[in-house]
């Protein structure tokens, strides 16, 4: 019974993985990788790709921004998502409509959002620039031209895109909290803040932990937004590890080095993945596993 599964997994995941790992120890590039007409001529170079990458100051800068990017995004996804979920978790008119509208950023294909935001950030013809001009500001910031602003711009876009998912997941978590507990706390004289802190938040923990870990993995791996808005620029300022690895593979055609990036990324994600599994196991939430 296991054989077909093992075969499919072996061809779809095992073979590319093994080949990737092997390539990461070679100097393969577009001239040596070989094709139907030219035999492969790359050579094994040991761990040179890895040592080159780890010694490269550009890589360290990119890794630094990847950390900023991941944590900033997850932080804002969670806080804004939680605030919106709390706001929507009360009886109000048109709740369904609000919820639907708040889902829009998540429902739109990311490449469309990316192009829309690139247009919004356009300097001087974009929406923000025109708006700031109308408000009397002489010069808008260079959203995509200044390294720091470009970093803020891509993070802002990704926050906008990611909030709905967090909001929805947390809203589900909120609705699963037993209302009687909150009522009992209120009867005992707990303030609203106290009820939130001691009843609502602990009740949200299983959902919150999962959402945060999934968010970390997704954001760390996010590619489209940065690639389509800044392409990593200006001057690699908004490059994250995935876009940087893509550049090594498909702009520089340094396949050996790109494979080494892949292995490094995979090992980082394995750490996240293990953490994720442990957390889920600890929560005893088999349904989320």
């Amino acid at each position, binding site marked *: 019974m296991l054989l077909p599964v093992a075969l499919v997994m072996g061809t779809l995941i095992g073979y590319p993985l093994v080949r990737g790992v092997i390539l990461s120890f070679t100097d393969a590039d577009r001239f040596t990788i070989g094709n139907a007409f030219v035999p492969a001529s790359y050579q094994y170079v040991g761990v040179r790709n890895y040592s080159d990458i780890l010694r490269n100051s550009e890589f360290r800068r990119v890794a630094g921004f990847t950390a900023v990017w991941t944590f900033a995004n997850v932080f804002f996804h969670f806080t804004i998502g939680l605030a919106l979920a709390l706001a929507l978790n009360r009886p109000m008119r048109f709740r369904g409509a609000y919820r639907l509208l708040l889902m829009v950023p998540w429902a739109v294909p990311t490449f469309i959002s990316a192009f829309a935001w*690139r247009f919004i950030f356009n*300097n001087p*013809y974009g929406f923000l620039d025109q708006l700031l001009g109308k408000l009397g500001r002489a010069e808008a910031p260079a959203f995509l031209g*200044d*390294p720091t602003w470009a970093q803020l711009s891509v993070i802002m876009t990704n926050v906008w895109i990611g909030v709905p998912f967090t909001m929805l997941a947390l809203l589900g978590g909120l609705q699963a909290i037993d209302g009687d507990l909150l009522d009992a706390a209120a009867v005992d004289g707990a303030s609203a803040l106290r009820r939130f802190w001691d009843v609502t938040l602990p009740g949200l923990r299983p959902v919150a932990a999962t959402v945060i870990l999934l968010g970390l993995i997704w954001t760390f791996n996010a590619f489209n937004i940065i690639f389509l808005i800044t392409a990593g620029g200006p001057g690699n300022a908004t490059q994250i590890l995935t876009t940087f690895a893509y550049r090594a593979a498909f702009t520089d055609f340094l396949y050996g080095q790109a494979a080494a990036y892949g292995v490094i990324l995979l090992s980082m994600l394995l750490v996240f993945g293990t953490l994720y599994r442990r957390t889920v196991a600890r929560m005893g939430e088999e349904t989320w596993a």
Partner: protein
Amino acid sequence: MKVTPRRAVLASLAAIALAAALVGAAAARQSTSQATTITFWQTMNTQETETLKDLVSRFESSHPEIKVEMTYVDFGNHVQKFTTAAQAGQGPDVMRADTAPDVAGWAAQGLLTDLTPLVSARAKKDFVQAAISGAQYRGKLWAVPQTVDALALFYNKRMLAAKGLKAPPATLSQLVQYCQKFGAAQGIALQANGYWIQPWIWGYGGGLVSVAKKEIYVASKLSIAGIAAYNRLFHNKCATSNRDFSNEYGNMMTAFKNGKVAMIVNGPWSTADVLSGPAFKRSTNFQVATIPRGPGGQGSPIGGASFVISRNSKQAKEAATFINWLTAPAQQAIFADKNNLLPSRVSAYALPVVKKNRIIVQFLAQMKKATDRSAGPQGGQIYTDFTPAVQRLLSGKLSAAAAARSIASSWESKLFPGYKVVK
């Protein structure tokens, strides 16, 4: 109804005629379905694509045995697309290449069909030098050139005249004086891009790289002087301060087309688009001049488009028929007329429609001052780290010397190992 013998004869005759007609139709259909279909990835911009579509349908009607299936591929990532596809045994029969940076690399990878036997001797002798040098690699012909190009200075004649400027700037320092007359954001729009900075590097007597001598010049004293001069344009109220690297090409074109900036630097491919702008309703208001002379010379990157046939192609012969037809002088004249593209064939320049196209004539003056930038199979990769360094320079994060050194060291480690970096 009673069937008389006479009627029966008529009916059977009719049936035979009908059957014959049906067979004939089927045969006709069969002959079209036997037509060879060649796939073609093209990278032309909107205006050029209009002309191309027209020409392809003309080709199909004059060559019923060949069908062309065209797919648009974005110029910005055509190298990645074709390289990856062809490497995996896929991709189109015919690819449109950016001659100087693409062809040698693909040929060295073994991804192209040798066109030496598929192009007529007459055509080979008829290509202009700028077109043929990039299409050849190791003594063989790998691409059929379609156009040649170089960057030139575009200017809005009325805007210059309004400031009392009768002629375009002749030197790079005169260019600075010119555009300072327009105030901060209206003199010239330029790109934060390795390709666009090249005329300044050559203008100050610098260079990029020499494969023959195994030397890298981009960090030489003269190159740094050129890079610094380019950077100064953005800081002395000359060039439009470039504040949006993602949208800079489109913004440059929008500004020039709307008369918001007096000068830009661009190539023949963009002229049809320029002329569609409100500032150029009177087309003679748009003028093309050679890139001004610098203290160390004058230069502009030689480029052009060509067509290659993938080595994966099973119908190289039909594909060659198509690209030979598409690059024949008569077809080049149509592109010249509609899109002001410079033909790759000497004989095309003798055709009246090309001869009287003043934009082409103005560009020809630039071609005489243009620089061969071929850098072997790795030539296509030189801009990968070049452009980010220029972006950092223009956003004030790197000095000209530091930017130049970072380009040189990345070229040395990634593209040209063992080359000497000339100081």
